[in-house]
């Protein structure tokens, strides 16, 4: 606008900039604060002397926390469920979403609702737990994968997206004699990659962050995830610090990089959040699109 800015406008914009800068800072500061605590002198961080800038920077905490028994295993479980669970969730949602766009499907409306209702309604924690136990899915890695294959929200996303594609593409293939499977793999799937990417991201973040399923179903330490061990470490940090101090033999370590409860908590937290921080810049452009499509038919 070439119009001269009025005084009221100037005040409005200044206040607006200021308020949003503060909100953005509040959102991002804990991440920064976490990071500077992991790389600072451990003695200072445990006494709360690291406030806004790191002091006496070192990176040995990251190597040392790997000595915590079971930490590497938890990392593998988290990684495994994220990769495998996401692959299945994407395929399940894409194929099922596609099937539900087919008007001629037997009982289409009924089955679609049958799935959507589960977003709002569930039997409750205890009956669910009993069912999972009867299905032998307690202390079983499959419990991380199988329930994630059909996710109502993802099915809605795919269905809405496929319906927005020009029908002529599928019709012409049908006339050429292609069956549903061929239409899906050769024509529809390549066209829905934007929504598939969105689902993959949502699903991967969900798998990585999932906590309660481990809490309810897993007593075998081999199946603990990173989120779950982080929760445990929050309360057991003192004894873990002692274990790590002993296992690294104190070779050349002084107070500055000896493990403390604080250094254990912060470093493990940082490792748990790091994958999210690393992929976030790449995926944030996807989710606006994803959530928009989902909103068309909440």
């Amino acid at each position: 606008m070439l119009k001269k800015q009025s005084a009221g406008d100037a005040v409005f914009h200044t206040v607006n900039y200021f308020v949003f800068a503060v909100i953005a800072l509040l959102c991002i500061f804990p991440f920064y604060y976490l990071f500077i605590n992991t790389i600072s002198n451990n003695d200072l961080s445990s006494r709360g002397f690291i406030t806004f800038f790191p002091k006496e920077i070192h990176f040995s905490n990251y190597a040392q926390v790997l000595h915590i028994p079971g930490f590497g295993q938890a990392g593998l479980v988290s990684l495994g469920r994220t990769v495998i669970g996401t692959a299945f969730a994407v395929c399940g949602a894409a194929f099922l979403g596609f099937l539900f766009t087919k008007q001629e499907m037997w009982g289409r409306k009924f089955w679609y609702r049958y799935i959507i209702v589960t977003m709002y309604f569930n039997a409750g924690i205890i009956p669910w737990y009993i069912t999972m136990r009867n299905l032998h899915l307690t202390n079983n890695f499959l419990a991380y994968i199988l329930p994630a294959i059909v996710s109502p929200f993802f099915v809605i996303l795919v269905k809405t997206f496929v319906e927005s594609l020009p029908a002529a593409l599928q019709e012409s293939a049908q006339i050429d004699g292609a069956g549903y499977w061929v239409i899906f793999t050769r024509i529809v799937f390549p066209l829905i990659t934007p929504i598939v990417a969105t689902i993959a991201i949502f699903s991967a973040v969900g798998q990585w962050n999932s906590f309660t399923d481990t809490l309810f179903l897993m007593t075998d330490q081999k199946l603990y995830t990173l989120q779950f061990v982080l929760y445990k470490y929050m309360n057991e940090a003192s004894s873990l610090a002692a274990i790590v101090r002993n296992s690294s033999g104190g070779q050349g370590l002084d107070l500055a990089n000896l493990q403390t409860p604080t250094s254990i908590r912060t470093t493990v937290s940082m490792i748990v959040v790091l994958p999210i921080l690393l992929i976030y810049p790449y995926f944030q452009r996807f989710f606006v699109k994803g959530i928009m499509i989902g909103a068309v038919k909440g």
Partner: protein
Amino acid sequence: MHNSIQAQNGIKSVPGKRRLTDIRPKYRLFFMAVPFLALVFLFSYLPLYGWMYAFYNFRPGIPLAQTDFVGLQWFKSIFSNPTQTGEVLRVMRNTVAMSSLNIAASVLPVIFAIFLSEMRSARFKKSVQILTTLPNFISWVLVYSFAFMLFSVDNGLVNQILMNLGFIDRGINFLASDSHTWLRMASWDLWKGLGWGAILYMAAIAGIDQELYEAARVDGAGRFRSIWHITVPGIMPTYFVLLLLTIANFINNGIEQYFVFQNAINKSNIEVLDLYVYNTGLIGSNFSFATAVSMLKSVISVALLFFANSLSKIVRGESII
């Protein structure tokens, strides 16, 4: 693969067999979906069978067949046993309080989006959106870890700053305290969800016809009048849909957040329905009573869903499920 062959056969079949080609694809589609429908049955519908436990005096380790059928005893005890009535009322109060706070806070993303869209610098807008959305993608365990770092009594940042500035001499134990538990949980919720919640509204505002603003300016409307008469009505439909979804999920406020933040001191105010069911059922081994409570919860949530759905039909002429 062989489906395509079937389809080919179908296309080439003689007109007399046309009926067959009409019927077969619809069942074929259904059979392709069956494995997925079965999974949904296993994980979402089969657990309904577990409601039976609410009618037995079930103890873990003893098969259901060998336990006593007690009928409605557990349901009656919710209302007749004063301790259990008190417990359930306390948990209901926490649930209703926290859900109500969340509904009250649901206007904040709207305000956030309205004011952010008034910013002229596209770059600033984008940066604020990216930074404020990030907390949505971390787990509650991590939020708890942040809370621990920032508010812990001996080395937390907030206590350090307050002490350095001379406001307090000894650290305040924010975490192991029961003051304003509801408000604090709502605040963490807001911290995590504000930017994310605003995204939809930002998109809705971007979709409003710019000519409306031009016309309003020509007519002499100021910034706030334009917001009130154009932007707000423009995003009302979006807000309404999300509000209905919130109402439908009024008593499903989840467990994760409250579980990680709970401790012996704040337990009485932080225990929402789901957490209470977990604590009494899986931790306290009182399976049957916990199942009875969660059954009541499911019934209420279905009622709420129907309520929200009919409200949606009346106001928008469209259902939400």
